[in-house]
């Protein structure tokens, strides 16, 4: 598979995402500078974490007008697979590819720690390698991860099973105490109605290798590959 990792000024998880897809999962990865206006021949696009444009104005607010975002939107609208992680999620929200916004964490703190999230929908292109209700341990690292949307939109998102991850306890209970940032309904990740765009605040690329002591995040990337059928074949083709 050919994965494009978008690089904005201020992205800082771009190389982690490249590493996971290329070195851990054996896929072909192309780094895409934010000035690009075409995404040719890609199977999936990653909007990585970081602080694009210094988080000026609002997180993701400037990045969404980057030249590349027009191409990302066109790619997504044609059904292309897009995952936005942390700042990437914030950009997807600002771009209107996913509904809602991020508010400052209720604690006002930048929170960097492992959290538990419950897989609420395992029948997606991002979670098909997980069990429904499975608890994943994945780190978060953000100051603006407090998901918010209006009640009508939230109702629609829930009714369509677009809530993919919710913050939970180690044994899978979705409680206020397990909510690190004040997110509405403990939401940690949502998908669009068509099922090809996912945004999530936790960083699966930081927990995708046994040497790091945690491989839970890898399930998400493996699910993306599985959704194309036979990812192994692609690995062989590119001689990894």
């Amino acid at each position, binding site marked *: 598979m050919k994965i494009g990792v978008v690089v904005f000024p201020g992205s800082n998880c771009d190389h982690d995402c490249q590493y996971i897809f290329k070195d851990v999962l054996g896929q072909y990865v192309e780094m895409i500078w934010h000035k690009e206006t075409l995404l040719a021949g890609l199977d999936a696009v990653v909007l990585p974490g970081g602080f694009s444009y210094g988080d000026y*104005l*609002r997180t993701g*607010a400037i990045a969404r*007008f980057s030249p590349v975002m027009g191409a990302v939107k066109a790619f997504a609208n044609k059904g292309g697979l897009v995952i936005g992680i942390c700042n990437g999620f914030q950009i997807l929200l*600002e771009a209107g590819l996913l509904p*809602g*916004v991020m*508010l*400052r*964490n*209720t*604690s*006002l703190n930048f929170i960097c720690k492992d959290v538990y999230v419950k897989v609420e929908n395992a029948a997606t292109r991002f979670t098909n390698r997980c069990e429904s209700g499975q608890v994943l341990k994945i780190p978060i690292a953000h100051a603006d991860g*407090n998901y*918010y*949307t*209006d009640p009508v939109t939230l109702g629609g998102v829930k009714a369509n099973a677009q809530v993919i991850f919710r913050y939970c306890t180690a044994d899978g209970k979705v409680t206020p105490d397990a909510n690190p940032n*004040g997110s509405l309904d403990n939401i940690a990740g949502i998908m669009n109605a068509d099922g090809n765009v996912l945004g999530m605040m936790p960083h699966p690329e930081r927990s995708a290798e046994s040497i790091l002591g945690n491989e839970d995040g890898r399930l998400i990337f493996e699910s993306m590959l599985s959704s194309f059928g036979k990812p192994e074949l692609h690995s062989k083709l590119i001689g990894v």
Partner: protein
Amino acid sequence: MKAKIHVTLKQGILDPQGKAIEHALDSLGFKHAGNVRVGKYMELDVNETDRAKADAQVKQMCEKLLANTVIEDYRYELG
């Protein structure tokens, strides 16, 4: 023409910064301060002499970029 733009959180949207400032005011002894809301103030020049056109442009700027209308209101003066 200069535009002076205020972007504020809509009523009912949680404002953790406002809350923190409120607590700080309280601990400084300002017991009568309440309901602190933090917003943004921006100034910009619009290279346009026609007031109606300038107004339309600033409105578009607010809608497209300066405010996120899911959670924020905006208002501005032209002068």
